[in-house]
């Protein structure tokens, strides 16, 4: 009887051992574990100071920036705010192929999450700081369509803004004299606004532009707090690094693991999508110009030239950086065939909320994106860096399943994910 009990117990134990053996537990090599760890959100270093923005980590500046970010008065028609295209509930994108402000924008709205880590901004990298980026759309006729005198006057006339600004940046001048400070003046293409701008004294233009640049710095102080939270992928990597088989099984299924293997192997994805934000924040031509109806756009080739001469660059008078802090701008590559038709590598975090994809929103689904890279069509503009991947339909599906695991919460103060009260 005792033997039988042992036998039955043994068989049962063996049965459970067999069924409990997790099919998902993979034997990642040491090199692979290193790679996975490099993509893990725990490898994201604390956000370094932005030397060009002395209020980048100032809590009051972030509070002011939060208000400015959602304020539709900061536009030519009173209907466009930063949050129009960067909506918190869409991972700070807008769900549209091409952004829509006061007019049609020829590019897709990228997310803001984690962009404080990037040395370059916009798809073409025409700005070299987050605060300088924030100022671009505000005077673009197809985005906010405003002017810097209009914005400065709002800051001065709104008591809450007035106080908040002065607490951070010091005394705001009186801008009530409309002859000295026209209500719509800026160095932009619009002839009337430009004429009004050139009619101002150099000192008054300087006064206004200083206020305008400080608005960008406050917006950046807010945006610097919009960071990615841990995704299911990050939990899986933690489980791998901890050799926790149960957790590995809990967080990733077989297809997702196979997709991850393709991602770091055959898919060649990690050439550009690397680091904890899954982007090298650099510029690449992936042949997107081959897609029908893609707006003709040389991308980085023009963007870097703009950045070099931008009035709010790291080396500009409005930057708080020392010359030695501006390495990205000083050593930026300004010539080379690779720049033509190149666009910034986007993060792959929160992809379910950031469709459609690519710089002009040309591809509406992740499968379409993977299939595009699988085919690697010849670029119509410049040269694509891609080669066909030879992925099977099943592998495309696995890759998609893996990419969907990169969704995570936004790590930010809760109040900052909604309009200010």
């Amino acid at each position, binding site marked *: 009887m005792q033997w039988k009990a042992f036998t039955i117990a043994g*068989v049962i134990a*063996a049965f459970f051992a067999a069924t409990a053996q997790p099919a998902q537990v993979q034997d990642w090599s040491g090199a692979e574990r290193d*790679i996975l760890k490099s993509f893990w959100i725990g490898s994201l270093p604390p956000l370094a100071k932005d030397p060009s923005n002395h209020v980048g980590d100032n809590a009051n500046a972030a509070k002011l920036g939060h208000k400015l970010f959602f304020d539709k008065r900061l536009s030519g028609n009173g209907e466009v705010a930063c949050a129009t295209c960067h909506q918190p509930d869409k991972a700070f994108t807008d769900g549209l192929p091409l952004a829509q402000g006061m007019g049609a924008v020829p590019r897709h709205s990228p997310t803001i999450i984690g962009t404080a880590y990037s040395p370059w901004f916009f798809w073409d990298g025409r700005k070299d700081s987050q605060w300088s980026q924030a100022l671009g759309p505000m005077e673009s006729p197809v985005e906010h369509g405003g002017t810097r005198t209009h914005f400065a006057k709002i800051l001065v006339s709104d008591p809450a803004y007035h106080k908040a600004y002065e607490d951070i940046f010091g005394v705001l001048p009186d801008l009530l004299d409309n002859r000295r400070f026209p209500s719509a003046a800026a160095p932009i293409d619009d002839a009337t606004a430009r004429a009004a701008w050139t009619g101002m004294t150099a000192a008054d233009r300087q006064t206004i532009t200083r206020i305008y640049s400080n608005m960008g710095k406050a917006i950046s102080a807010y945006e610097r707090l919009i960071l990615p939270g841990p995704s299911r992928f990050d939990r899986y990597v933690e489980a791998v690094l901890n050799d926790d088989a149960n957790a590995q099984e809990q967080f990733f299924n077989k297809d997702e693991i196979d997709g991850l293997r393709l991602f770091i192997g055959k898919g060649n994805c990690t050439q550009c999508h690397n*680091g904890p934000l899954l982007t090298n924040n650099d510029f690449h031509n992936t042949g997107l110009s081959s897609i029908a109806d893609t707006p003709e756009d040389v991308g980085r080739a023009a963007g870097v030239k703009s950045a070099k001469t931008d009035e709010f660059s790291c080396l500009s008078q409005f930057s708080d950086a020392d010359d030695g802090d501006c390495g990205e701008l000083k*050593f930026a590559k300004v010539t080379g065939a690779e720049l033509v038709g190149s666009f910034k590598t986007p993060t792959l975090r929160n992809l379910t909320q950031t469709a459609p994809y690519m710089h002009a929103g040309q591809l509406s689904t992740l499968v379409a994106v993977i299939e595009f890279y699988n085919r690697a069509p010849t670029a119509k503009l410049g040269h694509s860096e891609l080669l066909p991947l030879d992925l099977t339909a099943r592998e495309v599906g696995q890759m998609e399943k893996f990419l969907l695991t990169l969704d995570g919460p936004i790590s930010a103060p809760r109040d900052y994910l909604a309009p200010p009260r």
Partner: protein
Amino acid sequence: MSRFGTLVIAAFFVSIFSLTPPPVAAKMAASDGHTSSDEKMKMPKAHGHSDHSGHKPTKMHGDHSEQKPVKKMPKDLDMAMDKLSEHGKYKVSMTSRLNPVAINKMHGWTLQVSKPDGTPIDDAKVKIAGGMPMHGHALPTMPRVTKGLGEGKYLVEGVRFNMAGWWKLKITIGTGHHMDNVTFSLVLK
């Protein structure tokens, strides 16, 4: 415990091991597998003088511009960071100021130039180029010497690699009538 019980337990363990999937072989494809056959690198033209020694130094622009991207990294890749230049005119070494060298980080290097006998050279004109031999693309930034540090040392600023894999750094050095170059390889994870 009875012998039979022992056998059952042994069978139990055997069953576990037989059901454990074999370790998956490391299938890490080098992540730098693509090439672009018609991609050409354009490098800034180097300053310096033509070589009067009878040797023809390699062209000054782009170390890959005359070559198609290579398919594989050589197994015996020379990773030395201290070498004689191609035609033996200079002894050159490069030391990263970021250790270990990591991708996506702007950083500097210290370049050391001397005569083959070890005499430091402080008046060299230096050009820096490079790229990924397997991809056919150049460096993503334009590094340059920003400062002479004395004793044959130079500060190179503005290096940022943007992907893992095999990178080349080509240093072209000119002094007086002598121009020569040296290429270093490094493999980043």
